[in-house]
């Protein structure tokens, strides 16, 4: 079974959850850029403290965060090994046959891995503390200048939200169809590239048909519930900029300033 953990919301009564999604997105984006500019231990310490504090404030169990970044951990491991073996600055620390590890390599591996891990945690915290509705509403508002020049800002946000909603459904169906076709002798992991492409057809066509059925149903549901685009729509969750948003903005600014001062 395919398991999709990306985009799973974790409900909890925390200030991070209650933060206006637009502010949350902008702050997270700023923090991400800052994290990728970290280049020394002092800066790293500040960044770790910032992310750890956010994690604590959000009341999301660390296990949940770990579960949602797990698919990317392999990538993280490869990245750090790559740095370890191929960065050739500083003194040689150890030699294993033709491969030698330098102090620069160790430092780079540690730094890159830590930066990437921090970025992953920040990204997954956004998804865990923000509902898809809030996200799409935030995009909607942030993209609204686009509507003024004739681009479909609201619709882009809505499509994004529906995509989040239907990915798990389609993933479940895909795995059921793959099981069914492989029991009918469909081989998806054998033969050359041409044969592989051909063998995927029974799955893709069946899945497309299923997607069209969902699209049909969805359009019926959207019509029945009077969805007519963004105009005239109100929102259950009011987006308001208050003290909490101000504090979040100031704290993020403080992080940026601290990182610049320690550079």
């Amino acid at each position, binding site marked *: 079974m395919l398991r999709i953990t990306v985009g799973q919301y974790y409900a909890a009564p925390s200030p991070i959850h209650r933060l206006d999604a637009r502010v949350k997105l902008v702050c997270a984006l700023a923090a991400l850029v800052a994290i990728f500019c970290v280049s020394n231990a002092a800066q790293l310490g500040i960044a770790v403290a910032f992310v750890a504090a956010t994690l604590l404030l959000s009341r999301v169990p660390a296990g949940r965060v770990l579960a949602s970044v797990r698919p990317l951990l392999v990538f993280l491991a490869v990245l750090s090994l790559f740095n370890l073996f191929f960065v050739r600055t500083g003194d040689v620390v150890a030699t294993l046959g033709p491969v030698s590890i330098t102090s620069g390599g160790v430092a780079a591996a540690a730094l890159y891995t830590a930066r990437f891990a921090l970025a992953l945690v920040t990204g997954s915290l956004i998804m865990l503390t923000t509902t898809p509705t809030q996200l799409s509403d935030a995009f909607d508002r942030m993209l609204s200048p686009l509507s003024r020049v004739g681009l479909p800002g609201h619709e882009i946000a809505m499509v994004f939200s529906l995509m989040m909603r239907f990915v798990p459904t389609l993933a479940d169906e895909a795995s059921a*169809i793959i099981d069914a*076709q492989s029991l009918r002798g469909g081989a998806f992991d054998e033969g050359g590239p041409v044969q592989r492409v051909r063998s995927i057809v029974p799955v893709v066509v069946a899945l497309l048909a299923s997607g069209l059925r969902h699209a049909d149903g*969805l359009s019926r549901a959207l019509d029945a519930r009077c969805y*007519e685009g963004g105009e005239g*729509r*109100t929102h259950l969750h009011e987006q308001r900029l208050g003290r909490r948003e101000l504090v979040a903005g100031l704290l993020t600014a403080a992080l940026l300033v601290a990182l610049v001062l320690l550079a």
Partner: protein
Amino acid sequence: MAPAEHPPIEHPPVRLSHVTLVYDGGVRALDDVSLEVARGERVCVLGANGSGKSTLASVICGLLAPDEGAVELAGERVCADGRPDLEAYRRARRSLGLVFQNPDDQIVTSVVEDDVAFGPENLGLPREEIAARVARELRRVAMEGYAGADPARLSGGQRQRVCIAGALAMEPAVLVLDEPGSLLDVRGRAAILRVMGRLAAAGTTLVHVTHFMEEALEADRVLVMDHGRIVLEGTPGEVFSHGPELSGLGLEVPFAARLSERLGLPWTCDEQDVVRKLGTCFFSQAERDRPAAAAAQMPTDRPGLSRSACEKKHVPNLRVEHASFSYGRGTRALDDISFEVPAGSSTAVIGQTGSGKSTLLRLLCGLERPDEGRVVVDGHDTSSRRGRRAAKRSVGYVMQHPERQLFAETVEKDVAFGPQNLKLPAAEVERRVSRALETVGLADRRKDSPFTLSGGQRRLCALAGILAMGPRILVLDEPAAGLDPRGRAMLRRVLARLSKQGITLVQVTHSMEDAARADRVVALDQSRLVAIGTPREVFSRGNERRLREGGLGIPRSLRVARELEDHGWPPLGDPLTTDELVAVIRARAERAKVPVPFAREGKC
């Protein structure tokens, strides 16, 4: 906007006159339909697949405009002489609610309360009003504890209740429910019906489209559709007294009505009524005539009890020994299950949603391997990779909604997919395809696209694709789910034919009547085996409490027989089917010389 929200009292919320709707390709989905629904009325629309009932639902909730005729919805003249007024339609739609089959297609967000709020948000209501409505409607469908939940983690029945709350939050003048229970299990369907009962009592106007006859009993008025026309109309009692006509339309009469008719009792739709009538007439007679009653208590002749299949062949070709299984680290999906399936027999697996039935099937066909214990399929232990591959060859697995795996341009190409993968010679592929299509009765549709078949035929086409692999064992996961009575009957005939051909059948079912027809029944509850044996053993009085705790019932005939026994009848010998029940009631009554109408031989 004001007239849409407060239509004048004299306007009925729905009025269709001489409405005709033709789809591309010339199919007359609605043919001169006239209908009026009064405020607060509960109307039930019955019909087989393709009778036009879903199209009628779409017209009533303003999603489809007819080609001819006039439509008035929520006080707006939305269509006159086949000319739709799009602005009026937009206004009317604000007062019309719709819930249809698949809850997955109707939920647009990943948080329950946001989804319920979606409609009111589109109406542009103020925030406080939306919040109040969301809370009120979630309470009404008994989902108030799930406001922050992710719908993907709810059961199908709970999700469908969220959809109903979402429609109600728009405060519609009419709520249209288009087969809301057809994809749900028995418990989910019962919960939906309870919600509908509460809505009707509160005065909500309901139009309910269904092919479950039992669901129509509570309605104020029942319409029966066939080929786009309303062919029967009246109170449930009036409509269901047309038994033969209904079966001709591919529908079935409620069990109590069928039973009372076959026993020659005054017509009724109420099972308790049947029991009361039979109970009192036997009891009063038995009081006067004790010796006769005693004679009737002799060991019983059991009609239709030949369970030859499992006695003839003792070779098990499926064996499960102390098998346990869990997905990931969570709780166990199956816990220490052991049973055998004799070759050529048919086995029914029963249990609530989440009891582990589907997981059990995945183990049987080698898609998963047990964490502990063994599963032996046709002599192959599935704990090894080679064993699983061999198991996959001897087992045909028919997943839930197998029609979703159809993909080819024609029926025959789709059925040929499996045999071709086996690298069989062309002549053999052709032979298998013909044979499989013959077995399921689709031989005359082989050149058609599978997507043009009816729902029941599509499922049979998918089944043919699996049969063409030549399995000795067929494992089916709720093969009848979502089919109308005609489709269910078609499927039942095909399965009986396969059983006669000597194929071992294992099927998960929600229908205790289907389970009673199997040679053996396996009952699961919370990942454990609670009962196993012949239907008679599993549905015995001693097991009744255990089955009830697992959310399972007993076949309807047996339920009536038990109640009769409680009303003073002599033992009736556990009849499992309507035929057995009717036969045994007649035999008892004759032996006891009870002069009642049902003793006469007749419409049997």
